[in-house]
């Protein structure tokens, strides 16, 4: 899934203020525009972690609320929101918060496989993987999700304060862990 505007980070960047340091009480005026342009993307990232659309929409609400109170520049919103959605969704996954029970009755609905060509992964396998994702160290899980959401290695490194060279190792370990769990075929939680 390409991620226009975020792919390709070869260009040197200058660092700017963090945006979160000055908490703003008033709600920013560009929130609606940012919300409209990024909502679907944020839900998709969270849904990748949670496997559930309703939960992902809940996460998106939290993330946009945080964004609305931040002073992150609007043109940096895409990256910020992706990272925030990943962390928040992983927290939800780990805390086992289940807010949308109707979802579990309804099932996951159709999913978009990243590669049309290949692999059929059963629903059971998907929930096994998500349960395992919740047990991974947070940083490993976050690196994995960000990478599979289309961020480049350099971007993942910056987002998680990793050295660029360790991103590959972190992602690879996370994948190995997940697949071990999958092979064991532990029953989903």
């Amino acid at each position, binding site marked *: 899934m390409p991620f226009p*505007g975020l*792919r*390709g*980070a070869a*260009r040197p*960047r*200058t*660092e*700017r203020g963090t945006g*979160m340091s000055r908490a703003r009480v008033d*709600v920013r005026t560009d929130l609606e525009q940012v*919300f*409209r342009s990024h*909502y*679907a993307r944020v*839900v998709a990232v969270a*849904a990748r972690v949670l*496997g559930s*659309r309703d939960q*992902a929409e809940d996460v998106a*609400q*939290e993330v946009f*609320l*945080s964004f*609305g*109170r931040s002073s*992150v*520049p609007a*043109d*940096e*919103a895409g*990256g*910020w929101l992706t990272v*925030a959605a990943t*962390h*928040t969704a992983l*927290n939800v996954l780990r805390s086992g918060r289940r807010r949308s029970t109707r979802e579990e009755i309804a099932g996951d*609905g*159709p*999913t*978009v496989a*990243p*590669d049309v060509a290949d692999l059929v*992964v059963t629903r059971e396998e*998907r929930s096994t*993987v998500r349960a395992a994702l919740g047990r991974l160290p947070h940083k490993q899980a976050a690196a994995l999700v960000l*990478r*599979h959401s289309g961020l*480049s*290695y350099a971007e993942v490194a910056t*987002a*998680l*304060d990793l050295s660029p060279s*360790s991103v*590959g*190792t972190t992602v690879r*370990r996370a*994948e190995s862990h*997940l697949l071990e769990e*999958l092979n064991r075929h532990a029953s989903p939680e």
Partner: protein
Amino acid sequence: MRHPSEGILRRLVDEPAGVPDDDRAHVASCPACLRALEVARADAQLVGSALAAPMTDDLDSDAAWARLTATQARPAPAFRPMPGATRRRWTAAVRRPAVAAVGAVVVLTGAGVAAANEWLPIFQTEQVQTVEVASADLVQVPDLSAYGDLQITKAPEPEQVADAAAARERTGLAVPEVAELPEGVTGEPTYQAAGVVEATFTFSAEKAAQAAAAEGEELPPVPAGLDGSTLRIQAGPGVAAVWTQPTGVPTLVVARVGAPTVDSSGAEFTDVRDYLLSLPGLPEGLADQLESLSEDRGTLPLPVPAEMVTSSTADVDGAEATVLTSRNGLFAGVVWVEDGVMTGVAGTLSADELLSVARGLR
């Protein structure tokens, strides 16, 4: 040499260009690493499928927005991004489109078994991204839109065609026939054809000033008569034959394209070009493309990213050809211009193998 770490192999799956040359070269020639690479690739794909997200394209964003505005009055949520999450400028990836050079027909593939499935048009000089080879890569023009009015007046409408005869009928160019396929290249090729692409560019001092200002620079004084001058850039048509392994890995591309030409009204072409080249903040790749443009068809429009590719020259039936070899040794290309037509041969083969294909073309 030590085997590269699993982390490096993992990156090779996603971003071969981000992996040091030494490591790539090692992997390409090390059966154990190639196996480990394939395992890493398969694992990545499997996890990718397992992590597939539920469909989100029919979201009701109006309802979601209403919900958000209703809850905004509540206290701030506890969530804070991890340190570092907000520190960088996400915008710096600003799309300065990585536009391929005119007549970008020789696509080089990213590394045989190693970076399988992904193509690396060397012309994409802004930053090398792995992209699928698309027929649109056959013919492109430099993106000068920041400095004036760029209009594509004739679109190349690239397409895959049934066979060499159809390609010829569409373009008037014969697809060069390969006398003898190198070892490892088998089967029938697919054929691509693209028409002529024509673009006009009208220089605008005002736009150029804006582009300079965006870079925090001041526009150098515009020579008299330059503002409003028009360049007409033309390239194509183009044809290509592409051999692909059963696994989908392309191994050999043979292509022929009408070399680009440019003419001008108003100021002289070279004046416009030289002035553009003097502009502060001109993206490097674009500068390379401009430099390689000329009014005659004698020069090779090949901005080559030196950090990835080494170039040398060789003789192909009397014409001087440029030989490009990736620094990791995994792919190569040979390209030359004769009578206004550019011919190229590229693939996951050695330069020697490609040269003998080039010399054997009919």
